[in-house]
């Protein structure tokens, strides 16, 4: 279950579990998370939660809302985001399920919404008005339990939910060493071709083409088309991909080239 850890000047104030679809934050007492401080607006911000995803929306507060130091209007919360409202900090904790549960958790489940007109015909156990999960695993997947009420709310009032602001997904760091091909013969001799993309084509389409794939464990060359196969260090490739080593010499479509790794 996701939660907020509220702190002031580094001192823990209180923890709040996200146990409902709409949580409000503000100075007035009716808020779910009440912060009694003059820098906080009466109705300051709102958290909309849809199953395992939570969205923060500033409700037009006087002094604004920061997430990780940046002012936001709407924000799709990620684990360990820190919301700042006045001098208070709210840390959003939505830990991935443990490794053991992860696999179960990720398995596809069916979210059923019984059609209104079909409900009459169903057995009493099936006539609940909220959608419910059919967990197709024998073991219930842990965090699905809170879903029905929330999912029903989504279906009824999607317009009430905040639109998330787009943020580029974190790109995994690329390995420092970049493979490069240098052409050794022919009219393009001397030219370098960095192998930056996941796949790089070399050769002449329709004549002889090979592809060099960038994989986590290195670079691999594979024959794609053409009657004859390229050679690496004088040996022809077979149908299998072959891992390239630093300073391997590739020859295809009559052109020699060298593979090397730039660090």
């Amino acid at each position, binding site marked *: 279950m996701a939660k907020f850890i509220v702190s002031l000047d580094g001192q823990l104030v209180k923890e709040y579990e996200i146990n409902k679809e709409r949580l409000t934050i503000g100075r007035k007492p009716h808020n779910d998370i009440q912060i009694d401080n003059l820098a906080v607006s009466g109705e300051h911000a709102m958290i909309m939660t849809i199953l395992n995803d939570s969205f923060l929306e500033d409700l037009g507060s006087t002094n604004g809302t920061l997430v990780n130091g940046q002012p936001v209007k709407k924000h799709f919360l990620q684990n360990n985001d820190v919301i700042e409202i006045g001098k208070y900090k709210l840390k959003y904790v939505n830990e991935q399920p443990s490794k053991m549960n992860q696999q179960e*958790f990720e398995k596809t489940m069916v979210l059923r919404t019984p059609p209104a007109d079909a409900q009459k015909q169903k057995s009493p156990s099936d006539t609940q008005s909220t959608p419910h999960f059919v967990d197709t695993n024998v073991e219930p997947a842990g965090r699905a339990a809170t879903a029905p009420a929330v999912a029903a709310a989504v279906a009824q009032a999607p317009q009430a939910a905040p639109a998330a602001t787009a943020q580029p997904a974190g790109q995994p760091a690329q390995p420092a060493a970049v493979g490069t091909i240098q052409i050794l013969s022919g009219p393009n001799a001397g030219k370098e071709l960095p192998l930056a993309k996941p796949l790089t084509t070399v050769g002449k389409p329709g004549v002889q*083409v090979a592809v060099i794939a960038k994989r986590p464990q290195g670079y691999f060359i594979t024959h794609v*088309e053409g009657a004859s196969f390229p050679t690496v260090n004088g040996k022809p490739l077979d149908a299998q991909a072959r891992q390239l080593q630093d300073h391997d010499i590739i020859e295809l479509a009559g052109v020699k080239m060298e593979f090397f790794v730039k660090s």
Partner: protein
Amino acid sequence: MMTLSDALEIAKATHTGMVRSHNEDSIVTDVEIGLAVLADGMGGYNAGEVASGIATALISNETREALVKLEPHVVDQRNGTLVASSLLREVIARANASIYHSANTQPQYAGMGTTLVAAFFCDNKLTVAHIGDSRCYRFRDGKLEQITRDHSLLQEQIDSGVITREAAKRSQNKNLVTRAVGIEPEVEAEVHTHEVREGDIYLLCSDGLNDMVEDEDIELTLETMGANLPLAAEQLVEMANDAGGRDNVSVVLIKVRKGFPANGGWLAKFLSWLK
């Protein structure tokens, strides 16, 4: 019945992935009748495989049988769509009934179900039926385009503006489908017919591919390896596994080598002129 063996090239690949203990995906392709079916099963123990296996086998067998006496390219007078569309709907309804029945009569299969995408080529057209989050993409003129829309919570959220497509990649609600085969007594397949062009490559895949590999990398693969379809299929599976392979991954690639009009011959034209 004409055969599409010369007009279409089909390659497929499936893999358990790097995390799961067994492969619950099933693929059946039948190039002669121009059919490819991919199903991603779910359910405890081996029930997922059973559900996806029933779906692919039943749909391909019954389609082949029905085509002996049907003309799939003509309009079905009952509903105004192509007979091909009606046919896919019917065989999918039968697969649904069969899986639902097994799930409700055999305890070891309780709760099993499957997502599904089926592609049927006929008369220079492609009819695609899908249920759940198994997808069909079209690669044409160097661009990849998804031509099915997932039946999933996340897609509904994207459609209603709750979440952007970009933010959806970080969602923790990826695994929730809103429709599946075999879960309810009846299910409606979403069916659309598209014009096909020579050189098109169609991709059917389970979510194990598109959850792990960005669309632009799928596009790059079809661009660089489209000349060698089996290699491209293996490459897609490899990319999913290199990215973590958290789920079973299955792909079917169908390349349109040349047109396949239903009424190509002079006799057929003459007969239609007589009518």
